[in-house]
């Protein structure tokens, strides 16, 4: 099952719109290395293609990130998930949810889609094993109703990967 829920159906505020348009322009001028924004006319949902960095476990594998923006972005964090199939990684659940503190508690409005993408790629690159999180099955079962990862109470215990 792919998670397609979005954190908020509410339209973007004017401030969020301005900021996202600005981010999109920046992205087109200098996209983060290894990422490609798939062009749509939907400013509120970006689909970004990521290619694993050379010399890492995910080298030349391609995955897709889905970024949904809430009404009050960037005060609120965007919801970022991997579309199916999600990479095998100790912090990425099979439903695409990503356990990464900056997407939840540690979000700061000074971050951008671009900086989030770079963090995710760095998380992938530093992995030493291709495996699912230990509690994958339990977690994915709990999310069956299309629950957003932003409603999860995450425990961030590992700063190595």
């Amino acid at each position, binding site marked *: 099952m792919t998670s397609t829920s979005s954190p908020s159906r509410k339209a973007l505020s004017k401030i969020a719109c301005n*900021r996202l348009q600005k981010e999109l322009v920046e992205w087109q001028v200098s996209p983060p290395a290894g990422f490609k924004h798939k062009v749509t006319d939907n400013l509120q949902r970006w689909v970004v293609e990521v290619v694993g960095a050379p010399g890492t476990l995910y080298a030349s594998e391609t995955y897709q990130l889905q970024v949904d923006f809430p009404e009050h972005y960037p005060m609120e964090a965007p919801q970022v998930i991997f579309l199916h199939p999600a990479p095998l990684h100790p912090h990425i659940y099979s439903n695409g949810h990503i356990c990464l503190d900056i997407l939840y508690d540690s979000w700061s409005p000074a971050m951008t889609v671009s900086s989030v993408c770079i963090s995710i790629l760095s998380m992938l690159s530093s992995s030493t094993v291709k495996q699912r999180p230990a509690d994958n099955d339990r977690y994915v079962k709990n999310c069956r109703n299309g629950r957003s990862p932003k*409603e999860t109470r995450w425990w961030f215990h590992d700063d190595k990967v």
Partner: protein
Amino acid sequence: MAAEEQEVRMEVEAVQAVYGDDCEIIHDFPPHLHVHITPRTADDSSQQFVEAILGILCDAQYPQKPPHVHIVDSKGLDENREKHLITTIENKAKELSSCLMLVALCEEAVELLSDMNHPEGNCPFCLYPLLVEDQSGTFAPFMKLMSCYHCFHSECIIRWWKWLQNEIIDSKQCDSTISTSAGNQREMEQQQQQNCPVCRKLFDAKDIEHILDYAGTNSSQPTDVIVEMDGDERKFLECESENNRRQQFESLLKLQQENSGLIEPRKEIVVVPGMYLPTTVMPTLAAIDAADEQHLDSGSTAPEAVDLNIPSNKATTSKHRDMNTRRKNRNHSSRRQPNVYPNRTQWIKKEAVSSDP
């Protein structure tokens, strides 16, 4: 050989004499120094947007071989400007090769930083340039956090600040049942310190309060956001006699306004676009007032614990009367400036769409 060493040692003494406490000697000989370099602003830190601690590491061949120069720490400098600083100093060092050059290199750094002494780049919130000119050729006001020198448009950082205050109030309402006096104190501390959105360095609420006043939002407003009332107070404010009284005051105020017999703060000239808003270390009078008021307000739940750092707790009773009038003023101001409130509620956190049962 010994004479040369003597000369180098004397040069280190000279650097120390020039820079005083700003020069830290890591190692005597061969010299290794950390020098705190600031732009020439006559020691006015509010006019300072950059600074750097330069590490200067010489080896035994100095001054025949130029020292290694690196940045130990810096504020307000991005990667490019740091690189520019280092390469220019290294070039200078090559130029002066075989002369004693430590003081000259430090002076070069002071010159460079004085040239760079302006904020650069975009506001981290809206991503538009900090110094953005509008049609009339003026600049939007911006401010700087004193702890890290990160700069933001005043309007953008205030919007964020209010959003955080609302989030704190939201979470307070959620767990009001478990609020103890100790918990209140912890929350108070949280409200008075925040992390810089860019580098997460802690800064004081006082750093930002002075622009809460500037930004056209009424001075009573920031505290208004924080104020919490207990049930009794609310009941009192909503009772009939209070409502009548308020109506009476409102009609009086209206009368006064109509007869132009009222001197009000002229909000529209508080912030002139392009006006530079210096971040003073001293909180403004209004900020002190606000802090006092906050303490007193929480006094209803923890009267003993909060008075510790208020110097003027001798006049508690008059302060309380004072506070009551201020509260009334706030009611008036909310009526007078309805534009303030939509602004505030605009950022109220929306409940996430809950999952199906």
